[in-house]
């Protein structure tokens, strides 16, 4: 029962966070005046803030100061681009990272394993934007194989503009998605590797070996399945990281998503857009955290036993 209370509490807190950061702005009256003047708004800050909260609940974030368009429609326009990018990146990170992690754990002394580990160390020190620039330099400028900016041709499917139905759209997606996936990929790989090594040492693996099971059954039927529990959790949380780092990737590739919109708004102090973006991001984060918590609960039987035994 404590679990449910915690989730409800977390939900309340996370959603409240952008509110907290907004409140921080009316620290002193002078600052308040300056903000109002700087933005050319004559109402005092707290009145706007009150309006903001009331409207935000209805999904209404006002008009962008820079583009004169409604923020809600502005964001709705950009949301598909960011989601497509983030989900593709997450898929790449998992589909490549997990096998690499398994491989490096099973062939611990192999040359390829050491190479992959060394590369992952470089990957951690290489900032996302630099990876993006290097990929552009290699594949777009020097080789000329792939386009380097924008989303390409998009198709509207029921109000959702997608680039995934055209060849051009896919070509535009490859470089940004790889850029965004690379860091998460190294994380997933290292995590799977260390979990796998841990599990392979466990008693039930020895027992499985003693029973005469083949390598294949042991590695994939027993070891990998037990490894995946923490991996699912981390992967879910990393999706939040991917959405945050999409700001950087979108900015490198001029990908017309929410991140690019946000960074342009920061540069010109477009408060309504910034606030709306933050609320939306918090909402996504809370949803992810909630799903991960529930998933963890569904995947790990020990947690369910604990609850039926009375709970905490």
């Amino acid at each position, binding site marked *: 029962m404590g679990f449910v209370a915690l989730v409800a509490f977390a939900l309340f*807190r996370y959603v409240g966070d952008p509110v907290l950061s907004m409140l921080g702005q009316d620290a002193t009256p002078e600052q308040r005046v300056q903000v109002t003047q700087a933005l050319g708004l004559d109402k005092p800050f707290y009145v706007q803030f009150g309006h903001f909260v009331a409207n935000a609940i209805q999904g209404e974030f006002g008009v962008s100061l820079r583009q004169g368009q409604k923020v809600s429609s502005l964001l709705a326009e950009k949301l598909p681009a960011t989601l497509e990018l983030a989900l593709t990146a997450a898929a790449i990170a998992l589909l490549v990272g997990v096998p690499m992690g398994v491989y490096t754990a099973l062939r611990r002394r192999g040359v390829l394993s050491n190479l992959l580990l060394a590369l992952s160390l470089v990957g951690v020190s290489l900032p996302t934007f630099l990876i993006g620039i290097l990929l552009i330099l290699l594949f777009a400028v020097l080789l000329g194989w792939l386009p380097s900016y924008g989303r390409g041709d998009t198709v509207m499917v029921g109000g959702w503009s997608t680039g995934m139905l055209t060849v051009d759209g896919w070509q535009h997606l490859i470089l940004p998605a790889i850029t965004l996936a690379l860091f998460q990929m190294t994380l997933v790989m290292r995590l799977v590797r260390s979990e796998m090594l841990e599990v392979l040492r466990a008693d039930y693996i020895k027992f499985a070996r003693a029973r005469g099971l083949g390598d294949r059954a042991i590695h994939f039927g027993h070891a990998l399945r037990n490894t995946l529990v923490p991996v699912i959790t981390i992967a879910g949380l990393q999706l939040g990281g991917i959405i*945050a780092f999409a700001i950087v990737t979108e900015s490198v590739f001029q990908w017309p998503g929410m991140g690019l919109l946000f960074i342009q708004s920061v540069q010109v102090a477009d*408060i309504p857009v910034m606030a709306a973006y933050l609320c939306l991001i918090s909402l996504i984060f809370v949803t992810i955290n909630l799903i991960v918590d529930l998933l963890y609960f569904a995947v790990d039987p020990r947690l369910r036993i604990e609850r039926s035994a009375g709970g905490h």
Partner: protein
Amino acid sequence: MKPDRPSALARFVDSDLWWSYRHTPVAIVASIVTVLMVIGSFGAPVLAPHQPFDLASISLNDALLPPAWVEGGQLTYPLGTDDQGRDVLSTLLYGSRISLLVGLASVLLAMVLGVTLGLLSGYLGGRLDAFIMRVADVQLSFPAILIALLIDGVARTLLPQGSHNDWMAIGVLVGSIALANWVQYARTVRGSTLIERNKEYVQAARVIGVRPIAIMLRHVLPNSLGPVLVIATINIAQAILTEATLSFLGVGVPPTSPSLGTMINNGNNFLYSGEWWLVIFPGAALVLLCMSVNLLGDWLRDALNPRLQ
């Protein structure tokens, strides 16, 4: 009679840490690279072959020259020049200085902030503890880069319009990176404070009437600093990368005093016209710096971890 104690240097040479250092080639190489880069960047006014920010000494005629070994390059500009005719090598040295300064300052600020809050939180407990840790939890669920970006963005709008000068912008940047990273320190220090505060020496100090502040600073703090130093080393690389990312996004240090990130951002504009050296060299410097600091941090963590010995 004072007992005969070996000097600090002798004790250091004799210590496990020094032994571990001498027997870890990676740590030696990483520290040499780090020291060289620190010397190069802080000695920039002396070492740099040109003065990139002295308008009198740069000439637009020299703009966009390739590195010396490429056809058309000149030996006076070993790594080429940028669009304004500034020597890339000199700008690089000055840029690393700003990157390093911002990285070190923000880690230091985050450390002071985190350690103070963690100490108060762990030692005093109660509502303050609950509040600080709640804020920490919320912050921890968001990536640091997003928080730094957000604080930086909000702070910029709050600053009075007329007062945008370089040092102010750098200060805001340092502050926002620090505010995005204090949580780790606070949590670590709080954890060890909770353990230390119930030990006998702390109780003894309390019984003889030492004031809480003195207990916290002189008794509890020294005993919880070890892990903090490890986190700080690893965070320096992280902070430098954060700074570079923010500068690349155009919300970091102002273009008039470019850091490595600003240089890469500028070079990015010339990517399609083939001037690759404007991106590659600052990028390589950034990666080299971060990687060697990271490796040093990894080594320090392993060397100070009693479980691994």
